């Protein structure tokens, strides 16, 4: 069976268009959720949580897709 991803041009797909601009940016889809602090102050411990988040899933996925796009001549 073919691997479907070899057929797909991610830059034509909702949420992943930014890969097309050559900046190596992740698509909108991989951006972390936006968590609001409407009132009050964030607790100090939130720093650790966000720090872990920035280095984990969203970046991992973006890096993987970015690497894939970057190592192939283009969509097939």
């Amino acid at each position, binding site marked *: 069976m073919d691997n479907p991803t070899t057929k797909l041009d991610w830059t034509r*797909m*909702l949420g992943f268009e*930014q890969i097309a601009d050559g900046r190596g*940016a992740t698509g909108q889809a991989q951006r972390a959720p936006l968590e*609001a602090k409407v009132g009050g102050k964030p607790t100090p411990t939130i720093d650790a949580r966000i720090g872990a988040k920035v280095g984990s899933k969203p970046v991992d996925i973006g890096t993987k897709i970015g690497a894939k796009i970057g190592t192939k001549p283009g969509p097939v």
Partner: protein
Amino acid sequence: MHFEPSAERGAALDIRMRARLADTLDYVFDEAGDELRVSPAEARRAGAEIRAASQSPNRFGAYYDMVLALEDNDIERARGMAREVLIPAGAREMRVAAIGDRAGGEAARYRRMLMNDPAMLHDCDAALLASAEARIVAAFDLLDRGFPAMANEIRALLREVVIAEGPEDPKAPTFDGASSYMLWGATLLNARGQTNVLDTAQALAHESGHNLLFGFCVSGSLVENSDEELFSSPLRQDARPMDGVFHATYVVARMHQTVSRLLEAGVIDDESMPGALADLAAHRRNFAAGDQVIRDGGRLTPLGTEVIESARSYMAGCGEPRGIRAGQLAIGQARR
């Protein structure tokens, strides 16, 4: 681009986002439909449904799960997600519901996509859920009376207001609300995050503002900064990517606009007045702080420039709400 909310603007963005999803699904099913076991007729039907009417945020989420499963070469999971994408999911009216009030897979998706640490999200007990739902109803009533354009834009943008409970421990990391690009039309509110109707009205303006920005940048980013570049944010103590600072700054202006219009309309009661004035002053300070970070470090796209200029123009021109006395403003400023 203008800063004023409107139902027409919200509806237009929803149509555009749905058209992009439908076009994307046409493309994906055309290229990989055989592997995904989606027939051309099924693909055509799904595209037609999505173009025709507002959809559940879950249908967007299922699409993202499908293509990310493909990226992981997990074809069985991608097939399962494709079946979910094909399920009709029209959502003409905005729904307010607990995060657990949906099928198991959908609830898990919402937890995962709306929060980086899903363990922070808990199902509310019945009393807390009822009080949160009542506050949301009252907040829309307040907006309808004092700033109907905002109420109508929120209804046009949001298909679901999702309620969950954050940690009870006051020292634990928590949240007030959340939005995700992958769940277009959904916003999460912490049942413990707001304690009064005015706060809830502001939270709705805030979170729908994130969805508004998602809609603006459906085909491109607001900023050129990478997500690894971190900056101080007006709303959080932790450093944020410029995209997050941009979002926070824009939605702060939207909150200022909301409080200002409610004050001008005379719908803020005496008990809430000191808090409203304090919020107004805080929003002005926070906007200035966030905007300075953007001016210093932001590399904005033409779209981003246009969007933030609309907020700057609003903040520069809004002045203080009509009918509010200087002494009242001083009291509000002293509270924060």
